[in-house]
């Protein structure tokens, strides 16, 4: 074998080729490391950014379908998820005169001339958020010991959509002496979209509501889908 011949002759004949050979051998050892580093570099610099961009595009294309308008004759959960008011009351007055704090917001839903839902109060804020579900943990733990998922969807009203009907959202600032009107919005029920409906308003003498996000969800969905729909960002 060439290897054995070299081994037997190289020490006695020429040390310089042997030294050069050892140098080449050491350089060869670096090649896999260089190839590894090149693969890592190539992936991180060229491949991954392209793959991430393609994935983002795919997500955008395959994202949730465009929201559809509600169907007349069906029942829907309706609730306000977000309310934002201007820094001053309708007409420009200060919120919480004397107290100096931000308004304590709550709202009413009025359908067919009657109040169908009143929200809890969110204290001291220009932006108020309401979760679509609420759970009585104490009742769940020490009451019957069971929790019906459907019963937790209690943070809004159920309305039956009919053409020509409207839903009124009246916003108040709660104060120790009662309530102060912060604004109101009247919405055509059959024009609402399933999912999130975001509205923005100009401030006026009767209106201090700046932004409102209304959630509308079909009640006929299975509870699990309903939770998904209400939980969608």
């Amino acid at each position, binding site marked *: 074998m060439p290897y054995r011949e070299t081994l037997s002759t190289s020490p006695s004949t020429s040390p310089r080729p042997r030294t050069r050979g050892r140098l080449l*051998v050491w350089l060869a050892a670096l090649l*896999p490391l260089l190839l*590894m580093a090149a693969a890592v570099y190539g992936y991180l610099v060229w491949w991954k950014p392209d793959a991430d961009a393609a994935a983002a595009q795919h997500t955008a294309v395959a994202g949730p379908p465009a929201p559809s308008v509600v169907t007349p004759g069906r029942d829907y959960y309706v609730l306000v998820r977000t309310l934002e008011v201007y820094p001053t009351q309708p007409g420009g007055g200060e919120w919480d005169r004397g107290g100096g704090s931000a308004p304590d917001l709550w709202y009413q839903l009025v359908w067919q001339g009657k109040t169908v839902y009143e929200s809890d109060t969110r204290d001291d804020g220009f932006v108020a958020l309401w979760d679509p579900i609420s759970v009585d943990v104490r009742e769940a733990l020490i009451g019957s010991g069971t929790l019906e*998922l459907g019963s937790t969807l209690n943070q809004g009203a159920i309305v039956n959509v009919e053409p020509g009907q409207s839903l009124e959202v009246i916003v108040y600032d709660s104060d120790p002496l009662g309530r102060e009107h912060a604004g109101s919005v009247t919405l055509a029920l059959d024009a609402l979209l399933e999912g999130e409906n975001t509205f923005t308003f100009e401030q006026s003498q009767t209106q201090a509501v700046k932004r409102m996000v209304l959630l509308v969800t079909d009640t006929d969905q299975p509870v*699990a889908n309903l*939770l998904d729909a*209400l*939980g969608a960002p």
Partner: protein
Amino acid sequence: MTGGRAALLGGLLAVAAVTLGLGLVGPCMTVIPKLGELTGWVEILRPGELDPTHYSLLSGINAMRLHGSPGLAALLLVFSVVFPALKLAVMAWGTAALALGVRPHAAVAVTHHLGKFSMLDVMVIGLLVIAIKGLPGGSEVVLGWGVYCFAVSVVVGLVVSILLHGSRPRGA
């Protein structure tokens, strides 16, 4: 060692090196957490909590280090990153030594035996898949091509190791 065999070993080593590099940084696994009937609840109460998490081998090791398992992270780093890379370097060293007629180092023989340990990471991933699939709630683990690249690198490395071992002259 013949020139053809040296070229074959060199090519296999190149494949092992490239796949090892890709296996370390490519997508290794995606964990899709689910909590059974509570999934909808958690998505509402903690949006983003159940988002799928993507890991490469390196980012997975780093996640282990950051989440309280520095010992296991160090073990995986040694046997999945440092050792395979050094093993390839030593085998390239040995291949070149045999091809050029220089006496190969004893490390070549050592790597032949230690090579089996580089599968440690694949085994850990296998255990993770089994563990996560066994959890209630339907959580899923989807393996990415990074795992397969890493496994290819390890297997090709073993083949090179065997071929290299067989190429050593008698009495060397």
